[in-house]
């Protein structure tokens, strides 16, 4: 602590010390014994990619808890390899969150696909950032990791997770993982999904009741019509037994953010394999193949950014979203592409360095809304990933500025879920776990030399 928070090293030392204490308070307060809830109010269960980002912060506070965070998530993994996007806490009342366990019915409807009999989970997934998190957690305290055989115990599950995405989710047949629900890429109501989502018949009004509006302003959350379509997609998948071969997906998209994170995690999985004496070659080979497919399928030369591909008509979706910048952290992209990405990030659409963090959607886009969830607000996890990507591309000054911006916004908003990119005002809930975790990670020094 004394070295890392040396004012000479990190500028405003006292501010950082109090920010660190505040972040620690959030992480300790949201810990439930085996894992961390994203928020005590709005999100009372365990979320898949939240846990990965939370573990990346927790590793600086308690390597043991960081390991438990990932272990408890993986303990709910399905036999087909999928890591569900929610693991429900049986102690929380069913109505506390919607869609609830009796909507997903994983232990019955998901049984043929290998859902565990307990705990109850959702049936969709979130971005596969877990192997990256596991590797970073290990690196924070290799002795404690070794003592608990953390990597050796986690490796089979992580490997099965990546194999699931490779074998069951390559719906386009071209080497990329497809998402089948707007919640899967984590950017739930991004304008990138609008066109594809419009084809989905909404679930009848009155057939479900949202719980999110009990805790958050309606203007900060997805609309009711969007929500009815989300419900329809999830119900259809459930009714097909969560069987990727049998289900008829009304929504199927190849997302650059999801695939970029999978590539980064494949490299981390290879490192993990090497550390435990397993063969790193399969994960590395998948990473290389997927990187080529990412460039072939999702690079939008005209816009200078990666965009999502709608598998309905096999066309790129002409929407600039923050997910299209995440490939900055993918090793081995052609320099002309990373240079173009850096130009796009700094240009009118994202204005890196001029606005708060990185907006989730094109600042000049017709759908831009500075308050509504993933339709404009800046989020801390995507900013953290882009910070990592900037370092990987050698854009050190930009990375350092973004890091300072993330820390400033985290502190000023009380660890908000997301912020208005123009004025930095906090939106959504406060004391959000991954905001605290990733701020703590950035406070504890620069990340390992990014690949």
């Amino acid at each position, binding site marked *: *602590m*004394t070295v890392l928070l040396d004012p000479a090293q990190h500028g405003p030392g006292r501010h950082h010390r109090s920010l*660190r204490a505040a972040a620690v*308070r959030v992480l*300790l307060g949201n810990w439930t014994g085996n894992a961390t809830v994203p928020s005590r109010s709005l999100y009372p269960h365990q979320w898949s990619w939240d846990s990965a980002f939370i573990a990346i912060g927790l590793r600086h506070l308690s390597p*043991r808890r960081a390991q438990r965070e990932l272990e408890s998530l993986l303990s709910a993994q399905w036999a087909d390899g999928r890591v569900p996007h929610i693991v429900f806490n049986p102690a929380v009342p069913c109505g506390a969150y919607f869609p609830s366990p009796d909507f997903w019915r994983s232990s019955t409807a998901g049984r043929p696909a290998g859902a565990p009999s307990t705990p109850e989970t959702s049936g969709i997934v979130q971005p596969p950032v877990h192997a990256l998190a596991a590797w970073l957690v290990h690196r924070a305290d290799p002795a404690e990791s070794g003592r608990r055989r953390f990597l050796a115990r986690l490796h089979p599950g992580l490997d099965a997770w990546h194999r699931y995405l490779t074998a069951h989710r390559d719906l386009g047949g071209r080497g990329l993982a497809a998402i089948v629900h707007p919640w899967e890429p984590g950017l739930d109501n991004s304008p990138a999904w609008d066109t594809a989502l419009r084809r989905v018949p909404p679930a009848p009004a009155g057939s479900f009741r949202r719980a999110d509006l009990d805790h958050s302003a309606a203007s900060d959350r997805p609309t009711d019509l969007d929500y009815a379509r989300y419900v329809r997609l999830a119900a259809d998948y459930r009714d097909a037994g969560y069987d990727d071969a049998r289900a008829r997906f009304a929504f199927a998209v190849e997302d650059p953010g999801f695939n970029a994170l999978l590539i980064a995690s494949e490299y981390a999985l290879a490192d993990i394999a090497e550390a435990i004496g397993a063969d790193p070659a399969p994960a590395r080979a998948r990473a290389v193949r997927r990187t080529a497919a990412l460039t072939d399928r999702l690079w939008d030369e005209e816009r200078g950014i990666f965009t999502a591909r709608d598998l309905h008509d096999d066309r790129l979706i002409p929407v600039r979203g923050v997910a299209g910048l995440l490939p900055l952290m993918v090793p081995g992209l052609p320099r002309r592409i990373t240079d173009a990405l850096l130009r796009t990030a700094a240009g009118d659409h994202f204005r890196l360095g001029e606005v708060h963090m990185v907006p989730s959607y094109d600042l000049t886009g017709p759908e831009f809304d500075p308050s509504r969830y993933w339709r404009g607000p800046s989020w801390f996890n995507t900013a953290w990933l882009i910070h990592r990507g900037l370092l990987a591309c050698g854009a050190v000054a930009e990375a350092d500025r973004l890091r300072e911006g993330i820390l400033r916004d985290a502190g000023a908003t009380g660890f908000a879920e997301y912020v208005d990119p123009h004025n930095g005002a906090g939106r959504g809930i406060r004391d959000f776990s991954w905001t605290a975790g990733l701020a703590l990670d950035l406070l*504890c020094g620069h990340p390992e030399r990014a690949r």
Partner: protein
Amino acid sequence: MLKIACQEQLLPGETLQTKWEHATAAGYDAIELRGKGGLSFRDRLPELRRALADGVVMPTVCVDMPHFIGAFDDDLRRDAVVQMKSQLSVIAEIGGAGAQTPASYGMFSRRLPPFEPPRSAGRDREVLLAALTELGEHARAEGVTLFLEPLNRYEDHMVNTLRQAADLIAAVGLDSVRIGIDSYHMNIEEADPPAAVLAAGPWIGHAQVSDSNRLQPGAGHLDWPAWLGALEAIGYQGHLAVECRLAGDPGEAVAAIPAFLRRAAG
């Protein structure tokens, strides 16, 4: 910045000055004194003044007697209050922060036969509130603090958790009475020790450390980074006073503790 104290009996040497040399060489910032009964702590004043003049830092004293402020026996209880008053005065005289005592130690456990104590819980509370109020007022007058230490269920039947201590202190209503937490006892009594630290944050005035097995920090299985992170989160400014038994070579064990704790604190 973590400040670490070592209880005096753990350090080699005959005098506080010699102990201080060993302590500072190992990275300690202070020595925690032990206060025996019979007003013998008061009788050490000349020795303590010399040590103070020689630069020894002695912020706290931990009681070291066979009876305590919650004793069943009226005379013993009266004596414990007299002793604690004296210890508070002495620690004030040498510029320290306060004196620590449990409600009792080794007198009764509800987990061991005969299970039912001879005094009611209501009466326990009355005698503790009376003693804590009297001592708190004395501490306030002296400009120091009385630290009430919750012990685990096998060592005391009255105050086992931080919450119980905070409830009593709230009823006393004096800033000069705070909780003196101990990581070993918390490991037994608290479901989530770091969360308990956060919840009791405003009430915590002092902290003692030993591992899950009462041995030196690092010799057991406590999640030290999380526990120390909680103290950091509440803005704890006091010392971590090492009070433990030692495994392995005693000199090496004691010398290794500061580095271990500082590394665990991140």
